[in-house]
């Protein structure tokens, strides 16, 4: 049962590589994603067992991933209709196959209860994503893919080393064999593990998966990859991949914390995470103000949010972890919606080719289509921690926890958030309400804008009127992983 959502897309990918015109591929992709979404919901009933069995965290983010994949695939249909001429049919097939591979690999990583499988999943997702980035075949796209490949490859290598070190550190507790690679076993035996080895392992894990999560200074690949690849796959669908990496970091951090809490020799994980988190927030805060390309711009903001989440994990404690997880969920919803809206907006300016996402080109969307303009504006506003944006709740929790547990780092965090918020909001004016480029005529907005509105509504609802079950689920996870 649990294997279905993982391997259905991966197997279907093979078929998609050889079959179908672009539009058919897109539709098939959407249908598949729909089934996968249903399956991710079904998994709640039978979490499976053994190598692949999903815990609460995996289930939650699995469902989220399924949802994002579905909406992205739906928006992707409009995208393909608009941009069909831009890629050769075989490349389109490859592209849709890659969408499914990324989806399957991400789910595998989320559901796997084995650090080795997790690593393999991340590697697969990375390679697929690299391929996808290189698809447009333009010089800049190839260059972006090359960067992605080199940096991602190094990251994967480091992650593998860390994984092996964790295994090694678990020897005193669990001895050789699969047990020493299973999260559940590890976290229950963390106390008896070799603390110093575990710390060393955590550093490598942090750098390995931190590269996937694009924490500064490991972020080098992300902006270009976002900006150059075929939009839906490399932007909207990559949110779940960031989540996967962050969740991996969270799990390993928990091992370290548990070992240290029970008198082990491990160092506290806080300082490492706080350093990278703050570095991310600050660098983004300064980098955002000079961006002229929308996708690159919001790529940077993804880096910022990874940084915030890492920071929250670094603060530690159930509440902060809760805030971090909530932040991941909300930011994934908003960001994916935002990119869908961005593609739609670029469509309104009748060009969905990469490179046409420059702010100068998208100015004054509201003049092209009022609804689209407001939705896009709402999505951008949703990225900053000002109410009624949902992120206000998570950032409020995180900052309050920071003040209570580690007051001195709250000052730089506040400053960094201030920089990022202002840098994002100062683009809303020109982008949404500004004076449009000449010969801009009002047009009909695609139906994908409704998807974006759905995303935003979900984000706000989850933040300020969280249903009891989800609340219980999240707080249990946070309590277990503190």
């Amino acid at each position, binding site marked *: 049962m649990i294997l279905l959502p993982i391997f259905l897309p991966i197997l279907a990918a093979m078929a998609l590589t050889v079959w179908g015109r672009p539009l058919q591929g897109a539709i098939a992709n959407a249908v598949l994603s729909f089934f996968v979404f249903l399956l991710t919901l079904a998994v709640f009933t039978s979490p499976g067992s053994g190598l692949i069995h999903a815990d609460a965290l995996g289930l939650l983010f699995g469902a989220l991933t399924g949802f994002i994949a579905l909406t992205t695939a739906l928006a992707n249909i409009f995208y393909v209709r608009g941009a069909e001429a831009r890629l050769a049919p075989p490349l389109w097939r490859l592209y849709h196959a890659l969408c499914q591979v990324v989806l399957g690999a991400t789910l595998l990583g989320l559901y796997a209860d084995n650090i*080795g499988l997790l690593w393999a999943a991340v590697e697969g997702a990375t390679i697929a994503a690299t391929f996808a980035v290189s698809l447009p075949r333009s*010089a800049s796209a190839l260059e972006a893919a090359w960067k992605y490949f080199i940096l991602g490859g190094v990251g994967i290598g480091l992650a593998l080393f860390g994984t092996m070190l964790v295994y090694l550190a678990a*020897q*005193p507790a669990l001895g050789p064999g699969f047990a020493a690679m299973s999260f559940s076993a590890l976290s229950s035996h963390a106390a008896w593990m070799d603390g110093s080895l575990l710390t060393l392992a955590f550093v490598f894990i942090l750098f390995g998966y931190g590269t996937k999560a694009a924490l500064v200074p490991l972020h080098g690949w992300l902006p270009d990859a976002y900006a150059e690849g075929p939009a839906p796959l490399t932007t909207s669908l990559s949110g779940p991949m960031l989540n996967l990496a962050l969740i991996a970091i969270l799990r390993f951090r928990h091992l370290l914390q548990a070992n240290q809490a029970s008198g082990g020799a491990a160092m506290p994980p806080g300082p490492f995470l706080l350093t990278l988190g703050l570095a991310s927030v600050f660098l983004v805060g300064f980098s955002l103000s*000079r961006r002229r390309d929308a996708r690159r711009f919001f790529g940077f903001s993804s880096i910022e949010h990874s940084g915030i989440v890492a920071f929250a994990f670094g603060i530690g404690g159930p509440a902060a972890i809760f805030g971090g997880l909530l932040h991941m969920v909300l930011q994934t919803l908003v960001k994916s919606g935002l990119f869908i809206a961005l593609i739609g907006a670029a469509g309104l300016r009748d060009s969905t080719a990469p490179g046409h996402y420059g702010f100068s080109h998208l100015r004054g969307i509201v003049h092209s289509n009022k609804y689209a303009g407001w939705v896009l504006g709402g999505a951008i506003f949703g990225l900053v921690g000002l109410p009624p944006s949902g992120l206000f709740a998570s950032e409020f929790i995180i900052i309050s926890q920071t003040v209570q547990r580690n007051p001195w780092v709250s000052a730089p965090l506040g400053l960094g958030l201030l920089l990022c918020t202002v840098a994002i909001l100062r683009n809303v004016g020109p982008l949404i309400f500004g004076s449009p480029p000449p010969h801009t005529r009002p047009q009909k907005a695609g139906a994908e804008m409704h998807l974006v509105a759905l995303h935003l509504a979900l984000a706000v609802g989850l933040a300020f009127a969280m249903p009891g079950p989800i609340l219980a689920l999240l707080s249990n996870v946070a309590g277990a992983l503190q």
Partner: protein
Amino acid sequence: MSLTFSLAHLMGGIILLCGYSLLSQRRLAAMIMLYQMQACVLALAAFWQGYAQGEINLYLTGIITVALKGLLLPAGLREIVLRFNLVRAVESAMPMAMSLILGVGLIGIAVLVVLPSTMSAVSLTREDLAIALSVVLLGLLVMVTRRSALAQIIGFLSTENGLVLAAIGMPGMPFVAEFSVALLVLLAFLVVGIFLLRIREHFDTLDVTGIEAIERRGR
């Protein structure tokens, strides 16, 4: 038992030596040569560990290693060098002596971080771990200090050798063969090099700085 460890150390030492002397090379051919040697010794180490631990899939790992990394990849690299008649000399971002000193420093750090760990009830000793870690770091150093893409790839390959060295040392670790295969896929992508070909189409040299020309325009 002591023989096991001493031989393992010996091979580890040789691998480290190759990794270190990669730093000092100025010619692509020599770097490829060194890498090939490193890979072969790695294969030997894999066999030896397999014999010592009685693990079949370690033999498998060894076979894969010698077949692909010992023979195929170097051949591919040489092919690339010949076909694109790349600049044979590798220009370095920092003075050779400097990078050598850094290399020593890295080894020191590796020892420093491994030292406090108590390897109780583990066949892999701290020395092996330190060696593997040093190889990994040295490989990264090569990637950082070399300007030509091929040299960077070689650095990456030797990093990956370090990983496998650590992997085969792991007592009864599952998936070791699978890991090495997965890594190999990565390397294969690198070296078979759709990228190199593509980049070849667009740029006359593999020198990565050439790519940055676009980047510098700022976006």
